[in-house]
């Protein structure tokens, strides 16, 4: 009973912070270095998997460096770990380097900004099931909504390094230009597909940007870009396409409908409030269809997901 199952080895690990810098209006990027046993464990990190980060004993930033909108809740105590996916994982000699792109939204992420190079972070992982690259797929369509970027960026890296035969295209959406979690902004966002967004272009992945307010790229939901691409490429063999998406649930629902209607394979990375991330608390329920039945079942985002087949998920069940 006590033996660990090697096949899904997860555990408590520490990582050394290499850097932790502001990367945009409210985005920060932390680079973490895993060494020893953890280096091996995280070298096998799948894009879409996640970690639970402990921020409970981190300091609160000085008042004058706290964004005004967060001042009221900044001193709230933090008990639970917070789940994050990595935006990049690379192996360097005997260490594994992971990039954690995060948005400062509350007391926990605010505390994360106080970590400095050389500090040690406590985390649990790798957790859950990530994106899988199915045999026979020739084109991967990546769809990002705002902070859904990190796991998709990580997937783009995997496709670029281990699946060069797969053509990869990214559709990146956000409310407005400042909500795009991109470290380097292009001078101008082009309307169509281009290599102008460095986050993806450095991996050879062309991308297209959409914002709700039109402040960058296409004005409108990112799903319109996906639909247009599918229309323009209607002659492609749908069996060889696959859509990967991460973002707000309403976007995922729309992406799933587009893919399901056209019988294109689609994997979505879901999000739920979770207390533990390891199947203990049962908080992160996702309503899923049972194949060949009208019945549904709750699966756990942390253990059965966070990546689900788009045909399986019953979207929009979480009360906002």
């Amino acid at each position, binding site marked *: 009973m006590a033996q660990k199952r090697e096949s899904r080895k997860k555990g408590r690990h520490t990582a050394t912070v290499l850097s932790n810098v502001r990367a945009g209006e409210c985005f920060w990027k932390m680079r973490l270095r895993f060494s020893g046993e953890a280096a091996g464990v995280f070298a096998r990190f799948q894009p879409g998997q996640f970690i639970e980060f402990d921020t*409970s004993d981190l300091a609160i930033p000085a008042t004058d460096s706290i964004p005004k909108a967060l001042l009221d809740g900044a001193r709230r*105590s933090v*008990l639970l770990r917070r789940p994050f996916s990595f935006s990049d994982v690379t192996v360097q000699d005997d260490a594994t380097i992971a990039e954690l792109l995060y948005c400062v939204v509350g007391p926990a992420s605010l505390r994360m900004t106080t970590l400095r190079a050389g500090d040690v972070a406590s985390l649990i992982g790798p957790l859950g099931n990530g994106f899988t690259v199915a045999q026979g797929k020739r084109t991967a369509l990546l769809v990002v909504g705002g902070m859904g970027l990190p796991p998709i960026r990580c997937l783009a890296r995997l496709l670029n390094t281990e699946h060069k035969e797969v053509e990869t295209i990214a559709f990146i959406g956000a409310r407005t230009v400042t909500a795009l979690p991109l470290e380097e902004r292009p001078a101008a966002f082009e309307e169509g597909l281009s290599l102008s967004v460095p986050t993806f272009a450095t991996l050879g992945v062309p991308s297209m940007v959409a914002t709700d307010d039109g402040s960058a790229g296409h004005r409108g939901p990112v799903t319109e870009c996906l639909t247009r691409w599918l229309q323009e490429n209607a002659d492609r063999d749908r069996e060889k396409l696959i859509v990967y998406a991460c973002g707000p649930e309403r976007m995922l629902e729309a992406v799933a409908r587009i893919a399901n209607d056209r019988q294109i394979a689609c994997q979505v990375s879901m999000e739920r409030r*979770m207390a533990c991330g*390891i199947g*203990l*608390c049962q908080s*992160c329920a996702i309503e899923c269809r049972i194949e060949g039945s009208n019945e549904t079942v709750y699966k756990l985002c942390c253990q059965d997901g966070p990546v689900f087949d788009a045909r399986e998920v019953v979207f929009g069940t*979480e*009360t906002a």
Partner: protein
Amino acid sequence: MNEQVDISVQFAGRKLANPVFTASGTCGYADELADFIDVDALGGFITKSITLQPRKGNPTPRIVETDAGMLNAIGLANVGLDRFIAEKLPLIAKMKPAVFVNVAGTTIEEYVAVVERLAGEKALAGFELNISCPNVRKGGISFGTDPAQVEEITRAVKKACGSKALIVKLTPTVTDISVTARAAIAGGADALSLINTFTAMVIDIETRRPVLANRTGGLSGPAVKPIAVYLVNKVYREVAREAGIPILGLGGIRTASDAIEFLIAGATAVAVGTASFVEPDCAAQVISGLRDYCVRKKIASLAELTGSLAEPS
């Protein structure tokens, strides 16, 4: 060296290697925890609530963090008795700790049916009667707040237990918890566990809606610990000591010193709950810390700690 310190305790007719349990609903069916902790090192283990039929549980959001705590409204999501027996019991049966199955239901008959099916399982130490869940519409806490019903359901379930021990888990959401404790003992409880969570609410001020889909949830975590310590001491002094009924104390325990407070207050054993979500090996750290305390204080038997609360100076 630390490992040689004897911290065994007698609890509900069994000798436990140590007094530390993991609490129901915070440790799954043990397999989830096994990646992080040697579950065989625990003193006791209490499964997630089992009901006769599978339960999907409540819609999400099911949790929200609060200062020094969290609310949950899981709604007794579980695989149901049949799948529990087929899929979970074989693993649990191999565990060294005393395993108690937490039983929930909406009618007395449902509770009895679950216990009857499991009473013959050699590997089980007994049952924990969940009559204090605040997050289900029927059953749960509605049994646990009425002393007459507490006695009736305890008696009916105890009869179905055969030789197995029965722990009755009490809710703190009553005017006088000693009244419910007395009722459970009158019904034949072999032990009492307290406390379950407090019914509570968090409101989203942007939408003016409750954050939880269930509106309310049960508050747990460090925030409730001082109240739990007080209630354990109250039940110990007013009911349990005289009746010779052991208390499993829980509510916000995350360190050995937290656990020791409960023992001094009157608990014979303790359970780690919410803290396992943050540190899955928390119970192991508590066990180790208990040993250190016994060495430091030259305590030969943990039993001498139970109820040893001194008067204020």
